[in-house]
């Protein structure tokens, strides 16, 4: 009898599980880590959706897109979260993503946003971060940086999102003169790393005066470590932006639930988690505003970004220029 009860209990539990739909969201690895937004987002969404939200992590944003392309229409993903504006047009061209059915919210982005497929969930500016106790006279432009005797560590555009950001930043500021600018910048480069973590780790270990990162990086040190020695150098030419987006996968079997999740990404419940876990600006400022500490960050005068349609061409030209200047 006892066994029967247990068996019945198991059966009921299995049935209950079967009735709860699962929404699979592919995202980049640091989003799902214990220190990223993933766990809190999962808990918050599951409170409202009567579903099981399952995150799958895959490398960084660009590897995420490669993963989806590798899986094609057989992918188990319902939603992809974490592509950025440098990837959206390539992603759209694959035909693997479907237009969303979400009423577009009022985004707090420095640029206009119109897109029927990709919805921003956070954004940031690339910047060079330095230690105020060591660098007392930070550069105010690329020109200053080139004329200074500061050392920098950057990331490789072929393997890193910030690395690609710097490539497009220099290209958007200098256009046809980018190779000359890179020749000047090259003299300051200690080394080029595979990813952000290596570069930032080397900067903290004192290998370089400045590191390519985000304007929001000092907020981490201020809020999580009560350390106000880190700052981002504000460049007069403006700062290149990264806007991170989410989209519904065309082959999803649960389009309604996927749309519900996309709508959720613009809600306060989601957006409040972003600043102190992903260390980026929320795409829609929550009604309680930004956390203390974000007020101290630099505010670039000019937001630079290539329109999605121009990114691929600019990227390929800029990469071959970068390679030829830095390889010699």
């Amino acid at each position, binding site marked *: 009898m006892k066994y029967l009860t247990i068996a019945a209990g198991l059966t009921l539990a299995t049935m209950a599980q079967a009735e709860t739909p699962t929404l699979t969201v592919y995202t980049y690895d640091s989003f799902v880590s214990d220190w990223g937004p993933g766990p809190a987002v999962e808990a918050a969404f599951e409170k409202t959706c009567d579903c099981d939200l399952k995150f*799958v992590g895959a490398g960084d944003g660009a590897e995420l897109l490669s993963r989806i392309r590798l899986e094609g229409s057989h992918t188990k993903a319902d939603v992809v979260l974490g592509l950025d504006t440098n990837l959206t047009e390539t992603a759209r061209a694959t035909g693997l993503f479907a237009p969303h059915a979400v009423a577009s919210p009022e985004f707090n982005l420095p640029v206009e946003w119109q897109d029927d497929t990709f919805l921003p969930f956070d954004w940031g500016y690339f910047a060079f971060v330095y230690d105020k106790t060591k660098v007392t006279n930070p550069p105010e432009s690329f020109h200053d940086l080139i004329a200074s005797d500061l050392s920098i560590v950057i990331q490789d555009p072929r393997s890193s999102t910030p690395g690609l950001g710097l490539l497009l930043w220099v290209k958007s500021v200098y256009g046809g003169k980018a190779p000359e600018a890179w020749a000047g910048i090259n003299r300051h480069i200690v*080394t080029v790393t595979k990813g952000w973590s*290596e570069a930032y780790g080397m900067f903290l270990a004192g290998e370089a005066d400045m590191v390519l990162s985000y304007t929001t990086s000092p907020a981490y040190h201020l809020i999580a470590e009560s350390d106000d020695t880190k700052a981002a150098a504000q460049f007069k030419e403006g700062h290149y932006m990264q806007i991170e987006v989410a989209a519904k996968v065309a082959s999803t079997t649960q389009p309604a639930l996927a749309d519900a999740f996309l709508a959720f990404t613009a809600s306060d419940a989601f957006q409040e988690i972003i600043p102190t876990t992903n260390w980026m600006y929320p795409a829609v400022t929550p009604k309680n505003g930004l956390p203390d500490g974000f007020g101290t960050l630099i505010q670039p005068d000019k937001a630079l970004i290539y329109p999605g349609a121009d990114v691929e061409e600019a990227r390929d030209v800029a990469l071959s220029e970068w390679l030829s200047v830095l390889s010699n």
Partner: protein
Amino acid sequence: MAERAFQLNRVSLAGAGALAVVLCLTAGTLTAVALRADSVGGLGPADWAAIRFTLLQASLSAFISVALAIPVARALARRDFAGRGLLLTLLGAPFILPVMVAVLGLLAVFGRNGIVSVALGQIGLDPISIYGLRGVLLAHVFFNLPLATRLILQGWQTIPAERFRLAAALGFSAGDVARILERPMLRAVLPGAFLVIFLICLTSFAVALALGGGPKATTLELAIYQAFRFDFDLGKAALLGTVQFALGASAALLAVRMTTAPGIGAGLGRQVLRWDARAGVLRLQDGVLILLAALFLVLPLFMIVKNGIPGLFHLPATVLWAAARSGVVALASAGLTLGLALPICALVVRRRASWAEAVGYLSIAASPLVMGTGLFIILNPVVNPSALALPVTALVNAAMSLPFALRAIAPALLDVEDHYGRLSDGLGITGMDRFRLVWLPRLRRPLGFSAGLAGALSMGDLGVIAMFADPEGATLPLQLYRLMAAYRMQDAAAAALLLLMMSLAIFWIFDRGGRGHADA
């Protein structure tokens, strides 16, 4: 006679099975990626530059590591001192560290803000800059000098004590010993040691880029990564993977052809006493060499320990769980490595099939990225890849450790069979009895070394797990990288220390177990 034929078949069968696993993981995954590609492109000038740089840095790294390892191994072979066992264990450490941890440890010593530069600054000299080809070589020698030393030291240990005794009785000088006993041994050991290190450096990527100072230091593996991540050009990735594979295979065949049997003869396994090395100047020379090698290898480790200790006791529970998972993967990987290596060695020795050893080397010439992608393409339609994340990690790491295991076990087994093979055949000791009574006692040392190395290597590997892991199934190296990605460098340093301790522990347990008590 029928019994013997059956035995040989069993040897062939098991060996073929192990080789099939290796071929599936290497050529199989490469084919899977190639088949999934839409088009096949050619190699551009940038790819040729990457090929040239890869060959240059791998050859130089292997050459320098082996050249430096010979005197260090000789010094270790003829000296016994307190702490020698500990030093031998620590010698395994650089090799098994996750690359980024090792790089930060190296930079803490040799970087612009490292202790060498700081010390130079205090006496008014400029700091050293290691970025460039020299940085790549420094890191690769740091990783591989210990491995080369261990492989060559094992060569020394195959020279029976009786030979040195006889040499002493005949009044041999150190030079005579080198000419008659040591050079033939080195001739047999060096090509393999060179090859293994060449193959390891062939697939280097993050280290080469970070210390190479920029895109000049683009290796083939980076070009493959670019093809996959940046261009999503699977045809290009497969083509570059094939080039890398072909380079590794050519090197493997060359080394196997160049390897000769030592032919020194069997001994009774008694303790080695070196009358030839008693001169004071030789003692001083060996002492200095051992000290320098120890400093070069231990200082960066010390910096990793120093940076990791503050956070060690505050590590989050999720990191500890990841450590437990890594421990299980490491044990599985150690077992799998022996399971693959022994049948292949048996095939090599009993069948005189040295080509089988060359096939066994191929796993390390294969691009980890191509292997991961290929496995993903093969497994994804059949089963959820993240459900297999840990078993796949254990298997891939076992395959990656195979070359070291083959290098350690095959010569020893050849020796055993040369000296005891006919006797065993005559006595009818075959099958499991042969394995248990004849092989196992004499292979303890290389088996322990191989298992320890495989376990420790897989403990620190990030490779394929990054492609397969789900959020809950992270291993320790993956958690370490996640901590770094979340700005938590202090916790990451502590996780690195934990990883270092666990890797060393697993290496020490197996290696010590293999060395037994008499000659530890």
